[in-house]
């Protein structure tokens, strides 16, 4: 089992959703993914914990979410608990440059490195721990 990223777990669950990581940069990409009919094939990767444009994806049955910033007490965290959608927040790579998100002090390269490493990978979310959510590489 290779853990390629980890972050704060929004809620403890035995669900272990798996799919290809799909980075969603803006509201249009969320709607395009819903339109494609393949929403449930993907673990969704977004930049912010306040990424409010993700709400339609949660409403339509998203199976798992990874964010690169934000806290479990955020709006998205509250929504993901309501929908019981496993969610790992402020994820960082276990390898790579070792960069960590610090509010107000993190430049774009931090986010670009995570997108580059995770987007398109087949992964499973392990949210069974109270505090730490893990992104596990499947192949």
């Amino acid at each position, binding site marked *: 089992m290779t853990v390629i990223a980890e972050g704060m777990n929004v809620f403890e669950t035995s669900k272990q959703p798996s799919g290809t990581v799909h980075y969603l940069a803006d509201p249009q990409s969320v709607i395009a993914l819903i339109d494609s009919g393949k929403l449930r094939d993907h673990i969704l990767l977004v930049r912010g914990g306040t990424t*409010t444009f993700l709400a339609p994806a949660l409403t339509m049955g998203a199976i798992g979410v990874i964010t690169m910033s934000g806290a479990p007490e*955020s709006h998205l965290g509250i929504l993901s608990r309501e929908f019981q959608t496993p969610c790992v927040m402020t994820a960082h790579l276990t390898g790579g440059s070792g960069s960590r998100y610090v509010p107000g002090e993190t430049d774009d390269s931090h986010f670009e490195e995570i997108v580059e490493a995770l987007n398109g990978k087949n992964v499973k979310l392990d949210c069974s721990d109270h505090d730490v959510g893990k992104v596990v590489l499947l192949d």
Partner: protein
Amino acid sequence: MTALPDEQFLLLNALWLRKMATRGTMEENAGLSAAAAESCLRSAADHQLVRVMGDYYVLTDSGRRAVLDHYDSEFASLRGDPELLAWYERFEGYNARFLELMSAWQTEADEAKERTYARLARIVERHVEALAGAARWIPRYSHYAARFERSLEHVDSGRSDYVSSPMVDSLHNIWFEFHEDLLAVLGRPRESLED
């Protein structure tokens, strides 16, 4: 920067805040009659500001732009008002506490929930009082107060889904929409504040 007709803004803003909504939800949250909402929606569809996804509506890029342009056009003059900025800072203090208590309420065992909800309701009640003051800048904010009061009544009558469920007009939904609205009034919409 162009302003939308008032009712058109109310309807599109309700959709922008909710992100994806049925016509009924938009009518209720915008405080419009069914006839007015129908007319606004038809016009918005003609101008390709909205699109339909099953039972739901979503804004197109042009629709999102029209809503944000309206905020810029209508509220730019308020953005330097020191009293409004002070009011906003006080709200942010309440907001941090609200989110913390909401998260606790979602995860606590039943016996602790009642006490946490009492604290949450007190914050909402204080916010409803504060909204009366904010209505002097933005009169439509009184509609948020009415929505909060209605949801508090639902919870009091045993409908606990009105605390945080995204499927009804819950306290969390209303709070979130108000926050998003206020940030846009101040020219700081979340879509440009992603972190």
